[in-house]
């Protein structure tokens, strides 16, 4: 705050920085567990890996209360409209993490049933590789998202 260029007597900060800081410190996740990755997502939230260290342990059942969607697992053609509807119900600003090979690219299932990458339905900010990604990978993805929000790289 006290910066040589700031006029004395004024409390000035970069408002964007405050906003970004607030956004990253209490990020609520909508539960969108689909397949194998959902189990790893639950394991990440549970005691051993303890996602609460990053203020991320609150999984909201309602998209209205969430600002991050972790698409954990394969998205089928039948699930695609549901996923888009849940995304549309989330308030701005919102972010999407595509967790795992299936959500990112369709993975090994290049067939009629799967959407070949969830980015065909919703815009994705972070892709987490792995099949399934371990809790460490998911945490790395989440922290990368935090960094990108803080640096203003992902502007919403």
């Amino acid at each position, binding site marked *: 705050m006290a910066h040589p260029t700031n006029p004395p007597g004024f409390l000035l900060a970069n408002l964007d920085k405050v906003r970004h800081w607030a956004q990253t410190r209490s990020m609520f996740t909508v539960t969108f567990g689909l397949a194998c990755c959902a189990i790893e997502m639950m394991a990440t939230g549970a005691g051993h890996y303890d996602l609460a260290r990053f203020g991320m342990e609150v999984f909201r059942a309602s998209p209205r209360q969430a600002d991050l969607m972790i698409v954990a697992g394969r998205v089928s053609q*039948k699930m695609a409209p549901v996923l888009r509807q849940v995304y549309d119900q989330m308030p701005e600003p919102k972010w999407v993490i595509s967790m795992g090979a299936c959500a990112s690219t369709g993975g090994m299932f290049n067939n*009629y049933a799967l959407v070949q990458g969830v980015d065909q339905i919703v815009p994705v900010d972070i892709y987490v590789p792995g099949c399934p990604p371990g809790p460490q990978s998911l945490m790395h993805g989440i922290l990368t998202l935090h960094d990108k929000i803080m640096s203003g790289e992902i502007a919403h």
Partner: protein
Amino acid sequence: MTDQRHRDKRNVDVWLTGTEDPDWLVESTDEGAQKMASQETTARLLEQEGLAVADDRLLDEDIAPDDELMIINMGPQHPSTHGVLRINIELEGEIIRRSKPIIGYLHTGMEKTGEELTWLQGPTNVTRMDYLAPLHNELVFSLAVEQLLGIDLPPRAVAIRVLMTELNRVSSHLVALATNGMDIGAISMMLYGFRDRERILAFFEKTTGLRMNHNYIRPGGVAADLPPDWQEDIEFILEKVPPRILEYEDLLKANPIWMGRTKDVGVITLEECLAYSVTGPTLRAAGSDWDLRKAFPYSGIENYHFEVPVGEHGDVYDRYRVRIEEIWQSLSIVKQAAESMPEGDYKTDDRKIAPPPRARIDESMEALIHHFKIYTEGFQVPEGEAYVAIESPRGELGAYLVSDGGSRPLRMHMRTPSFANLQALPVMMADSMIADTVATIASLDPVLGDVDR
């Protein structure tokens, strides 16, 4: 009210209760033919409700008029449906009258993909079906391929398979307990269950390279030998996990809230289980001692001593008790398997099926050719068809394979236990309270990857 209901809508200029089309609630949940069928006849209703088998408590006069029934939709995005299960529930007040599971939201087309993968690549595909018990999927696929090939395995490979699958049964039941607890409100049970699962997953990661979806058990044996200090790891698991299981029993067994939420909830009788093809802990909780490990033993599991726990009432509490007891029995099998682990090779020495050891490839031209052939073209399986089933943590897991003599299956079908068990859900939920729905679903322990494949 009846006159109003059947009046021509165009003549109604004010909206009155009861003037609407009687089916409007049904129509509003319409997704094509997946809406509930209308209540045309009693027989039709009983079929929908799952009461056509044994329970005929619901008689004609009990059926409320349409305008007192409400259809609510649960899922596919719901925290207590264990994935993407969707259920249409018809309520009369707080009582569930009918319900209809709607599945397919995780349909992955694995049976189609399985037709373009070679026999050796098959386990990579099937391991992602039941992602809580991946090793069982690999085992049943490999057993079916070996049945078609007609080969025998070295004793160490067989023993490793038993050791790993029984450990997997423990970790799967731990997640079942954890999610069951979480759905009813025992959040600490969820944290504990996942904590102890980590110990087993750590051993899996060390042995197979992955925490889930291992692709470890393959036709012809297993992919790698146990790690050098595996006995210490097993001892560590056998030392750390049993006290925790006792802790869960302290936490839940006589807990009045737990018992109030689970006793006499989601009851299913033995006859209904048989009619709806229900297997696994749900069938055993209803009073049958049917376990494929005893009836049709596989992988030499008849050489180990274990008992089959049986429940009495077929309710949620009995299913929970059966799972706890099965954890104890599986830990006992793991102990016996670790103590009697034979030395030797961990895969068959038939070089047409199992790839040669890495060191041999540098020395022998023939080994190099075999290695190349197995990983490109794959091995051929004689023409024929076979159905092999094992006892997975959820019930009878079967693989039906058809070969036309080539290096890929003509048809790969998996008989998955959750798919059949889910049919019994309307039977369990009929005439129960809406608040018991999540307890009933959780006690079935469905894995939606297993249902939809």
